[in-house]
């Protein structure tokens, strides 16, 4: 018991040290010189409470953990049923889920406000980014902390191609994807033979390099002011605005013979996003069943065994890296088209961290998980508008907690196994 008291006092003291000086004493500039203002009472009380909680918890640690252990683990009701059900039921359940999801996606634009559709488009962008990074991190097991660089390449490709060469969105989209893939190849080629955590830092560095270059190359990229007036995509030459922005284009509502509505633009973008995401899902679905997908998994499991079987690990990792980069490029092009304006501020490390969080939260390697996580990460901040300040704080905390409590993610991957049919 004595040891416990010492330990509890110690941790309480630590809690005091990490909270009081920073939270309790604010530095304020008054008339050009620094002073300290004590924080308001509520903060002080919170600090006191925190210290007490830590002290009591450490003191009665075993008892508390014991009591928590005795609580029935809350599992979602259908989760238990899911676990117990047979394979056929699970497949049917999955099909039902997919059909339901598809219906939702189709019905959404007709049921919701313009703002909601716009939000859904944003969600879809993150879904695409998450799926792309999932290939790199989840399927191939490569930790890429600079994924945002490829996103930026795609966005700036479209912006610059349209500004300097007048290329339309549809032409720029594949080019943007390929440019991003090229960057992925160039970066990956020397870097992929590095060990996991080194790879992470190098990719982070690369992401930062790209951002700094974009910020400073003002003559081409517009520097911190970015590039604006990026044209929206057209449908067979039809624009969705009120007036034609580019010569030779027609207007959607005029061609269709209906009154103008600002919703059409938004719905069109939404449908585009849906198509892109479906494309992404299709490609990933195929990749996982192709030799290269199997090779990714094998490489993740045991690299040395792969080498002994003639698998060229650099080439295999490179394929994942490049393909993942391509999807970021596509997403970037679309993002630029949707926003109409891009600047290096959209491509910071935090973006990479958010996309990584989506992949990790969803369950590395799991498509369904990534979709759910992207929805959660994009929608929740919107709902919790009042807590905007604390968003990033919660984000960081969530990442730590997820790793401690559930590193496998919300919907851990159920890999499709290749099996021999019983006809041989």
């Amino acid at each position: 018991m004595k040891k416990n008291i010492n330990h509890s006092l110690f941790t309480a003291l630590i809690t005091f040290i990490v909270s009081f000086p920073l939270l309790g004493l604010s530095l304020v500039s008054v008339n050009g010189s620094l002073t300290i203002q004590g924080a308001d009472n509520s903060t002080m009380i919170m600090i006191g409470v925190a210290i007490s909680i830590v002290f009591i918890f450490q003191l009665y640690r075993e008892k508390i953990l014991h009591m928590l252990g005795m609580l029935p683990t809350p599992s979602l009701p259908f989760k238990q049923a899911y676990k117990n059900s047979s394979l056929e039921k699970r497949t049917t359940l999955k099909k039902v889920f997919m059909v339901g999801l598809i219906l939702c996606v189709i019905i959404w634009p007709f049921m919701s406000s313009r703002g909601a559709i716009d939000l859904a488009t944003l969600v879809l962008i993150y879904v695409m980014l998450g799926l792309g990074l999932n290939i790199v991190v989840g399927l191939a097991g490569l930790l890429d902390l600079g994924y945002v660089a490829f996103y930026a390449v795609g966005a700036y490709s479209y912006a610059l191609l349209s500004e300097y060469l007048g290329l339309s969105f549809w032409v720029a989209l594949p080019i943007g994807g390929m440019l991003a893939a090229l960057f992925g190849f160039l970066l990956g080629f020397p870097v992929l033979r590095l060990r996991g955590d080194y790879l992470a830092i190098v990719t982070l560095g690369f992401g930062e390099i790209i951002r700094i270059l974009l910020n400073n190359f003002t003559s081409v990229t517009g520097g911190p002011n970015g590039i604006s007036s990026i044209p929206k995509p057209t449908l067979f030459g039809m624009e969705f605005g009120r007036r034609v922005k580019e010569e030779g284009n027609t207007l959607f509502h005029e061609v269709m013979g209906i009154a103008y509505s600002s919703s059409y633009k938004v719905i069109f973008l939404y449908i585009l996003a849906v198509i892109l995401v479906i494309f992404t899902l299709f490609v990933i679905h195929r990749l996982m069943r192709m030799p290269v997908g199997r090779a990714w998994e094998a490489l993740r499991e045991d690299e040395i065994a792969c080498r002994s079987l003639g698998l060229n690990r650099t080439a295999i990792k490179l394929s994942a890296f490049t393909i993942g980069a391509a999807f970021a490029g596509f997403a970037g092009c679309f993002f630029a088209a949707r926003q109409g304006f891009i600047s290096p501020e959209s491509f910071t490390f935090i973006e990479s961290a958010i996309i990584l969080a989506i992949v990790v939260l969803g369950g590395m390697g799991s498509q369904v998980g990534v979709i759910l996580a992207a929805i959660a990460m994009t929608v929740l901040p919107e709902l919790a508008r009042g807590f905007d300040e604390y968003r990033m704080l919660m984000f960081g905390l969530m990442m730590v907690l997820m790793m401690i409590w559930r590193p496998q993610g919300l919907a851990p991957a159920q890999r499709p196994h290749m099996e021999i049919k019983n006809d041989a």
Partner: protein
Amino acid sequence: MSEEFFYFLQQLLNGLTVGSTYALIAIGYTMVYGIIGMINFAHGEVYMIGTYVTFIAITGLTMLGIEYMPLVILCALIIAIVASCSFGWAIERTAYRPLRGTNRLIPLISAIGMSIFLQNYLVQAQGARDIGLPPMITGGWSFGPDSFQASVSYMQLIIFIATAVSMLALTTFISKSKMGRACRAVAQDLQMANLLGINTNRVISTTFVIGAALAALAGVLLGLYYGIANPYIGFIAGLKAFTAAVLGGIGSIPGAMLGGLILGVTESFTAGYFSAEYKDVVAFSLLVLILLFRPTGLLGKPEVEKI
């Protein structure tokens, strides 16, 4: 001697100054990596916190009426070190220890989360904007022709001396003391050290605390040197310090020192002779280059894969 020479000298001096501080922070990275093989992503934030606590302590002590400057700074240093060490200890206990032994990605992600959490903790606590501290130690020596005067400020001198002293202290500690020996043992083989009765948990905590103390020192020194604090200085400094650690050979303390100095000088020359805006790019490019051509770093030992 020509003014070019003095200009060169100035860049060199500036580079060594900044490089020393990188070295201090880099040691934290290298020690932790050497012992448990993980990159303490949140280490940069510990440095940042050191800077903030320094400002708070100095301001607080001045408000309490203490006028004698060296005393104020010394007290601020001690307070900052205590604070940073507490953070270092707490970070290890909460975000890393529960994840020890899992595959490498998981602690790294946790570390990233912790880094983001700490940055925003400071944003909540002290605001996101720059906070400026009026310069406390001014003056120095100038030399050179009238066309260009190179100078070494007293602050720079203090940085050199403080860094050198702490390096010496650390090296002595690692090689001579019992805990230092234990640190080396755990760095070589954690399981074996455990079996030999070394309290590896305590050793690991100590490593984090030592790293944090040095980062706090860097925070004090750079805080006084630049006079600016904001919640995001830890991120860039952390990356650069990590670059320095890798450059010198991750796991090697002398390597971290050497790497820090080299990085600082390279950056300074880039800023002085090419463009100040691209100096950050230098650090990252150096990182990429070393990892490509000599991943074990300058002083590191080549690792042989056990098959």
